[in-house]
């Protein structure tokens, strides 16, 4: 069964029918957001059943769209949080990726600006490595990107997409060793993206990051995970009641190979490790429960089948 990431948006009236249908079809709800009278549901559903969902959505005046980035957490790396780099490019990119279902976190580097002085500290590196991918928003000059990018990428092992002022071809030429994705012609700006060619660039970023993550998904498929991350999320939601009290919009963030649980590590790591999935298999058996560098959250890294010999 191949699961397809989708977004359902419609009214709150009778949306429970959609929720139940997704669950009955064997899909997983990743996030349900109720905003006044509207509801937005992000879910993974079996590819062959999308037609049924569309049929059910029609009388509810809802819409189903394929969202390639649902179930991914992406770091949007801005060179600093100063007025020079924020809000324009960074916020527009982060916001646009969210429209396609991704959960984005903005990582503003303490010393990412400049040429010679650009730097990446250990905490920033670890935070970026907790994500499924990172998108680096670089500046306008080839010379600076060529000089500083090796420093900024040091120690990062998640797929990287680079954006910058020079053209895509120039970026490919100056970045060595190559990164996973490039989008040129989108450097430092002083205004919001509003012109058609600028919006097209945002589309290009979404396409590029989707392509990069698809490659990663294909790699994961060769040695599948012991459990599907959204399914693990449901297990934790059922068994760790404290998650209900977390006020964050996504108390559990689904990633491609794990979860970020927004509960304190010291208090809840043990409880999560001991959750039983089925037939005496505990979360601790199939996943690493690690402290996150982001606040004191918990990172759950699901082990692959080759390591556990278990698929649940």
């Amino acid at each position, binding site marked *: 069964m191949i699961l397809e990431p989708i977004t359902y948006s419609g009214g709150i009236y009778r949306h429970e029918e959609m929720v139940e249908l997704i669950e009955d079809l064997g899909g997983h709800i990743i996030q349900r957001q109720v905003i006044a009278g509207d509801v937005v549901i992000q879910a993974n559903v079996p590819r062959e059943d999308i037609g049924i969902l569309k049929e059910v959505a029609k009388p509810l005046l809802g819409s189903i769209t394929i969202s390639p980035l649902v179930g991914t957490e992406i770091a949007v790396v801005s*060179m*600093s949080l*100063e*007025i*020079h*780099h924020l809000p324009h490019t960074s916020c527009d990119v982060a916001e646009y990726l969210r429209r396609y279902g991704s959960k984005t976190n903005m990582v503003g580097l303490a010393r990412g*600006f*400049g*040429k*010679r*002085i*650009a730097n990446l500290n250990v905490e920033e590196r670890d935070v970026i490595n907790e994500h499924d991918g990172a998108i680096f928003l670089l*500046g*306008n*000059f*080839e*010379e*600076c990107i060529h000089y500083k990018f090796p420093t900024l990428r040091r120690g990062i092992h998640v797929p990287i997409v680079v954006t910058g*002022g*020079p*053209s895509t071809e120039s970026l490919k030429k100056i970045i060595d060793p190559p990164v996973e994705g490039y989008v040129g012609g989108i*450097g*430092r*700006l*002083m*205004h919001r993206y509003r012109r058609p060619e600028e919006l097209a660039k945002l589309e290009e970023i979404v396409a590029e990051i989707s392509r990069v993550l698809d490659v990663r998904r294909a790699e994961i498929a060769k040695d599948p995970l012991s459990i599907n991350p959204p399914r693990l999320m449901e297990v934790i939601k059922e068994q760790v009641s404290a998650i209900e009290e977390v006020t964050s919009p996504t108390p559990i963030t689904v990633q491609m190979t794990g979860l970020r649980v927004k509960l304190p590590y010291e208090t809840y790591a043990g409880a999560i490790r001991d959750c039983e999935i089925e037939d005496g298999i505990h979360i601790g058996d199939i996943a690493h429960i690690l402290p996150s560098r982001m606040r004191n959250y918990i990172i759950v890294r699901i082990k692959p089948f080759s390591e556990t010999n278990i698929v649940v």
Partner: protein
Amino acid sequence: MEALEYFTVESPEPLGAEYYRRIMGIVLQDLDLIKIISRLHVYIDPKVPIFVAVGVIKKLPSFIRVRDCGSVKIEEMRATISIGNETYLAPLLIMLQGKFGKDRIDQPDRFTVIITSDQPIQADIEDMVVTDPSEGIYRDLIYAMQYAAPEGFKVRQQFVSKELFYYVASENTLDDAMVRSLVVEKFALMGVRYDP
């Protein structure tokens, strides 16, 4: 950016120069500085790296006086100002309160200010200076350059006179002689003779 007589961004990387032209244009527009700059030349060399902006300032508007804010009607010990232009209302009130005392200035509605004095009010009240608009402009000009220049260029030299200004920034220590020759050279490109 049509309002400027001369506006060029020069760089060994033409695409980078084009981006910076747009950045500079938006910053000047946002801070409303186009009306006070007549010529601007920006030079950015990312190899050094260095950012140089040299420019010519237009003649600045003179003092804002009470008569520029509204019409004044004097009746011996009482004067009524009907506000026509609210832009400088705050400095006007501060000035009047300083001159006549806080309890003698009343503002019954948004567009009326009443002064009640204990002695006859002179007719020259209309000529009293409310504010000098050029005061904040030099600060804004340097802020605009800091805002537009690449971030991280924290070592800088700046100069603002009544007619000219320059702003040089880098992340490395700046050599005085180099800065001087660069600034003179860039002013010359605009047809301006600058003698440091």
